């Protein structure tokens, strides 16, 4: 038993290090001066901190705008994907309708198309409709990309909520909508939070489509990808950190919804 626990803890530490060390190194590099990055051996402790690199990065054109665009697109994508995906997932979970299985397969199929194949015709359509080079265009693309997983995961989440709970709510006087809001949704919330996280990160990290669909209204990754390839090494670290941080913050915020909130305490 004790050995088992020890092994488990060891595994936890290893996994944490695997993800944590690169994060640390990127953060360290982003907050080091440009000279100290070229030093050999590279100092691994934050002895020579400077905000110079990061401030220059943030001050360079397009970065703050890209940041805001990315946030905008990410949050809008989450909202839009949930507004469409949650009811669809619920319908898939609760109602047996003709063509349900082909529909589920079809949903996955859209993900099989490479983003480039999707984006180029989309760019054409957006150019015609005047949506080209707006955050809306990117939001729409990201929502389309996220929906299959949103729908399928939420449907799995709703399947996990017993139908009898809904029936009990209705027997005791709740309308179907009320039963959903008071009994089903609270139980599905952890799963939906996970989907939201997944969607946000997907949108935040998506580069290709965002690059094709915009020129000036770049999201941060699209901006970084197109401008930083010919920037000095230090800026790339700063850009890397800027890319990682919001996703981590978002995950940290949503994390509390992930855990079972009833009867178990948050540690």
């Amino acid at each position, binding site marked *: 038993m004790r050995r088992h626990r020890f092994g488990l803890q060891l595994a936890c530490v290893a996994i944490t290090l695997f993800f944590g060390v690169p994060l640390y190194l990127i953060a360290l590099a982003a907050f080091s001066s440009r000279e100290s990055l070229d030093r050999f051996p590279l100092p691994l402790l934050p002895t020579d901190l400077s905000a110079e690199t990061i401030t220059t990065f943030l001050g360079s054109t397009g970065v703050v705008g890209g940041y805001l665009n990315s946030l905008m697109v990410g949050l809008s994508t989450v909202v839009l994907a949930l507004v469409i995906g949650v009811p669809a997932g619920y319908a898939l979970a609760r109602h047996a309708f003709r063509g349900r299985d082909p529909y589920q397969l079809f949903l996955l199929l859209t993900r099989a198309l490479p983003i480039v194949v999707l984006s180029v015709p989309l760019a054409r359509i957006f150019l015609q409709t005047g949506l080209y080079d707006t955050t809306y265009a990117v939001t729409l693309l990201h929502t389309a990309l996220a929906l299959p997983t949103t729908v399928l995961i939420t449907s799995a989440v709703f399947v996990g909520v*017993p139908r*009898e*709970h809904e*029936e*009990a*709510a*209705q*027997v*005791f*006087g*709740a*309308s179907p909508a*009320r039963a959903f809001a008071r*009994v089903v949704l*609270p*139980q599905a919330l952890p799963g939906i939070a996970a989907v939201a996280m997944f969607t946000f990160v997907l949108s935040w990290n998506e580069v290709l489509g965002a690059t094709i669909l915009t020129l000036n209204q770049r999201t941060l990754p699209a901006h970084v990808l197109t401008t930083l390839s010919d920037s000095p090494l230090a800026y790339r670290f700063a850009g890397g950190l800027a890319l990682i941080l919001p996703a981590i913050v978002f995950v940290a915020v949503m994390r509390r919804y992930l855990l079972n*909130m*009833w*009867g*178990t305490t948050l540690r």
Partner: protein
Amino acid sequence: MKITISDLVKTYPGQARRATDDVSLEIADGEFLVLVGPSGCGKTTLLRMVAGLETPDSGTIHIGDRDVTGVAARHRGISMVFQSYAIFPHMKVRDNIGFGLAMRKVDPAEIRRRVDQAAELLQLTEVLDRHPAQLSGGQRQRVAVARAVVVDSGVLLMDEPLSNLDALLRLQFRAELKKIVREIGTTTLYVTHDQAEAMSLGDRVAVMRDGRIAQLGPPLEVYDAPSDQFVGGFLGSPPMNFVPGPALGHASDVLIGVRAEKVAVGTERADDARPATVEVVEPTGASMLLTVLIDGHRLKVSAPPTFTATPEQQIWLRFDPTSLRFYDPETGLALLR
């Protein structure tokens, strides 16, 4: 509130057999009626149609004088205890119990008062502020019952509410449930596959088989005079014995049904007794259960606990003519004598 069920037919989509087959049933105001039958005979389906959770193909349901056949569950004025309890894990016990009242927009102070009262009745006062995850199985069961009785509806429906409890707890709570339901006096439709539960709880018992009601009556009447071989074999532990007429000196075109405890067992030869050979002896504590062979037919009889017998021993059985029931060997239906 009186419940009148008329000619209910229900076939689930893609199913060849009818789940309920033209069932008619009247439950008087304040009556405790138990639907009992083997698994899959349509009890739950019937109950769910009364609840409004399943739509019948044909037939009608009246609650009181109102036709509720097409009425949504929430407008039927019923409450229900589900087999899986279906208590809400994200709400505290207090909110679970008060759910029905909150949905009916009852004043919060009044909800509090009635929830406290129901909790007291079901010994849940201590756990009112816990979440269901922190309760034992028996306590969850009590929460489900409290939630159902607190709304004070005209009709109480229960689907195997005791089946998830262990044997000892089940026996305890059975008596408690009977007392509670008697106190609140609600018309109750109760589903179980456990014949002992049906006998002990019901004012009347409806024995179901293959979507139909095989017999309906007070428990002792159904136990004593089963209307067919199936009912006799389903109710009672041990079930009713069935032997061909000639084995007990009757005509060959009858099947005789007799309860184990209605047979007098003796070791002395007597003129009005029939010889039998003991096969198995099972002491149950309250009695001595004997499996005997009479004329090649196996019978279970119960003797007083002090009775001593060994396998292979010959004993003498006396059958009181008034305790014998006669059935058609072909159809299994009771014969009028």
